[in-house]
């Protein structure tokens, strides 16, 4: 019989990381993700792992870089302002082709912003975030169950591609408690880590770097990374369709916005409106092809986000030209209500 747990999102995520073999966590306190470092500080010693409360997010991400270079599964977590500080390190991870899992429990911004849930970091998460021409896989959970399951997946994807993977949650997902199934970790098939630094015992020295100065090297490296991102687009797109078959209007939403939208869509259906939803689970790679396919039979799309309009740009780029894309935004402060989203759906329908 499957084991059911009643857990907080942040703790389910941390528990899943340890199940997936993560033994190195480095982090710095920031609300609303403190349950994650607190969980690791308690449980890492029991798992014979390493927890360090770093002096800053800058140090956290670079400790992760070091542990990852040694071949260990490592992660860090933070919330928006702290994730901004990590962008340098994330860029170096991508350039050095090092795996690593970074969790952003999105709070509001810009600046110090506030501690309530937001989806304001969509652009930062999906466009690379730091300097240079790179992408990270971005997973967007929408329940405590997915906070758990996608975390285990994140470690495998990071190792599969030798690339940082971001989990973009938000303050609601991190703080809410609900029932989840305690699924076991089932690893994907992964390539051997034949690149790790361990001391050049009986082999040639290895080098992990992102500096390319010699003629033509940088261009070749950028194209190599590009090929990797193309492969992600081909093989790692994940999404969750909901009542899309006969839909005349498809809501596109992720995370908490998708969770609330689902209730509003059920209400709209009860009122006779043929509404469905396409929920991207990977924000990069974005489900472009499936949206394009849906737009051949559904004329209208409504992007619902907890910001003033970010993912809507990707929706517009994905759908066919004659499809109509509208946007409804609820910037952070309070959560969007089903009633409010129902009105937005009725208006767009």
């Amino acid at each position, binding site marked *: 019989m499957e084991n059911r747990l009643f857990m907080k999102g942040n703790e389910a995520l941390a528990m899943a990381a340890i199940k997936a073999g993560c033994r190195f966590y480095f982090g710095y306190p920031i609300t609303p993700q403190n349950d994650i470092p607190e969980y690791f500080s308690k449980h890492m010693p029991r798992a014979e792992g390493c927890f360090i409360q770093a002096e800053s997010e*800058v140090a956290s991400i*670079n400790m992760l*870089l070091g542990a990852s270079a040694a071949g260990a599964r490592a992660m860090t977590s933070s919330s928006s302002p702290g994730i901004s500080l990590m962008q340098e390190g994330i860029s*170096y991870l991508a350039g050095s082709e090092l795996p690593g899992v970074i969790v952003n429990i999105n709070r509001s911004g810009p600046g110090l912003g506030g501690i309530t849930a937001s989806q304001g970091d969509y652009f930062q998460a999906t466009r690379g975030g730091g300097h240079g021409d790179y992408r990270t896989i971005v997973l967007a959970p929408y329940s405590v169950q997915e906070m758990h399951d996608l975390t285990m997946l994140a470690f495998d994807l990071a190792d599969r591609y030798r690339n940082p993977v971001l989990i973009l949650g938000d303050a609601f997902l991190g703080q809410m408690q609900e029932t989840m199934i305690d699924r076991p970790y089932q690893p994907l098939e992964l390539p051997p880590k034949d690149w790790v630094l361990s*001391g050049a015992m009986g082999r040639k020295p290895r080098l992990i*770097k992102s500096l390319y100065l010699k003629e033509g090297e940088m261009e070749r490296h950028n194209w190599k990374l590009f090929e990797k991102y193309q492969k992600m687009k081909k093989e790692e797109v994940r999404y969750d369709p909901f009542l899309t078959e006969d839909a005349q209007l498809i809501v596109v939403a992720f995370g908490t916005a998708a969770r609330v939208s689902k209730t509003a869509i059920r209400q709209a259906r009860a009122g006779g409106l043929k509404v469905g939803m396409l929920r991207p689970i990977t924000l990069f790679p974005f489900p472009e092809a499936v949206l394009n396919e849906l737009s051949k039979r559904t004329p209208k799309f409504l992007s619902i986000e907890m910001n003033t309009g970010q993912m809507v740009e990707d929706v517009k780029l994905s759908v066919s030209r004659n499809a109509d894309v509208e946007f409804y935004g609820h910037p952070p402060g309070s959560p969007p209500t089903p009633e409010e989203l129902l009105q937005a759906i009725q208006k767009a329908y």
Partner: protein
Amino acid sequence: MKQVFSRPNSLRDVPFHFCPGCHHGVVHRLVADALDHFQLREKTIGVAGVGCSVFVYEYFNIDVAEAPHGRAPAVATGLKRALRDRIIFTYQGDGDLASIGMSEIVHTANRGENITVIFVNNTVYGMTGGQMAPTTLLGQQTTTSPYGRDFLQDGYPIRMAEMLATLEGVSLSARVALNNAANVLRAKKIVRQAFEMQMKDMGFTFVEFLSSCPTNWGMSAIKANERVEKELIPYFPLGVFKERKESDVL
């Protein structure tokens, strides 16, 4: 015929790119000598800082990770926590360690991470063309202190070895110079001691080298060596500022 001198195995057989009279080559050699002496080449991972230091991977015959500017001690922390039986050292210049990386070096030292830090203080940003560093001496002209460093404008040069020696987590903090044979021999001894302490799990060890930078100082190699003696050593005195014994650690 008996061979009495050769390139350490921990260095590759390639020419250094460093400018004539620069001390980086000597620092490389002394670190490699220590790795050879304790037979550590195959169990050591170096962490390269940014600046002229970054090219350690071109010269050392060992595994190397390159760190973002100033972050080498954090990267080394991650490596060492994951590989406790390996030898980890960072190699950093003064801009890297004492300016942008001040936070990382202080906290890594304070945690007493069991790593060795090789700090090359030549009082300028070398690779970027000789800008003012946190260790630039008062009155010293650089490309960003063209009228000479003025404490009212730029503050004072930072004495890292003394500063880190105040931290409980530090096991060895020393400053050495390479301007004459006697100082090179003293430096060699201290570098060996630092790595030996790491082998004994004694915690954080720090060796600051006063180094010349003839190119960015606008001097001949000989004049630059003289400047180390006349100007650098009086402000940055040589010596061991903190040294824990095995009995202190256990």
